[in-house]
């Protein structure tokens, strides 16, 4: 039976329905029956990974479409990378990913100087917020984006509420910014090497 790899995990307390796990040292490779390549299949993959966040101490999501003909083929592929995966799982252990996106609020269009000053003020405010959030995160990944700021933060589970409150409070202090904070997500932005 062809299987699909969902994620690597450690500290597994439970598994989503129809999933199994190949235990390799401290690393569990979580898999399930392979589906198709449709959008719904990709969404299902994401939902399984997201469910694992609440079932495991640490999760490294694997991109959609990593399939193996059988469990032994999965084990053979993963075994040479075991130490790397253990290190990466240790890096995200006890953490989740939070996303923060910031855009410039509807700009002032009274005159050219005001427009530019408002843009500069918003840009500086976004930079300051990023610095504040970095202090509350274990790591951060900033994306290239047309937005003022588009980043993901690796945050300890116990600090999620504090992090979100900080973002909300900063928004109140800075009406020149539109912002949104989403999560907690599986730390996909910090799992490139596991893909």
């Amino acid at each position, binding site marked *: 039976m062809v299987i699909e790899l969902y994620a690597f995990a450690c500290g597994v307390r439970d598994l989503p329905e129809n999933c199994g796990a190949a235990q390799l040292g401290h690393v569990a490779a979580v898999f399930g029956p392979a589906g198709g390549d449709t959008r719904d299949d990709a969404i299902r993959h994401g*939902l399984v990974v*997201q469910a694992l966040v609440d079932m495991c101490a640490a999760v490294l999501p694997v991109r959609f479409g990593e399939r193996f003909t059988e469990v032994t083929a999965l084990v053979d592929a993963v075994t040479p990378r075991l130490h790397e995966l253990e290190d990466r799982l240790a890096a995200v252990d006890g953490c989740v990913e*939070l996303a923060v*996106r*910031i*855009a410039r*609020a509807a*700009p002032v*269009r009274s*005159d*050219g*100087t*005001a*427009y*530019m*000053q408002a*843009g*500069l003020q918003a*840009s*500086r405010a976004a930079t300051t917020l990023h610095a504040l959030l970095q202090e509350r995160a274990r790591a951060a990944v900033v994306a*290239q*984006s*047309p*937005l003022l700021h588009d980043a993901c933060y690796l945050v300890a589970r116990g600090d*999620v509420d504090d*992090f*979100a*409150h900080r*973002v*909300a409070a900063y*928004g*109140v202090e800075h*009406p020149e*910014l*539109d*912002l*949104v*904070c*989403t*999560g*907690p997500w599986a730390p996909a932005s910090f799992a490139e090497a596991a893909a």
Partner: protein
Amino acid sequence: MTRVLAAQGEVPVPAPAMPRRVSVDSETVERGLAQLVLTLVELLRQLMERQALRRMDAGTLTDDEVERLGDTFMKLADRMDELKEHFRLRDEDLNLDLGPLGRLL
């Protein structure tokens, strides 16, 4: 399944990938080409505005230059809004999926 923890105002969601082929259907070809052209214009507008803000931050622009640049960017933004409305395009439509290189904007 987005879980919003904090929000203020309206922040655009990540842009969906633009279709990799421009439709040659007679009813949509004009819109498809407009989408492509406006995406490139938007890229240039953003690059110019960011560079202008960097120079303003560094203090290398005079007051007159700041006023003229700001006025130009305002007019360009207004014109872009008109064109987007004309071609029924949203902000998130003005993007290109460059495959493994990610998105243009």
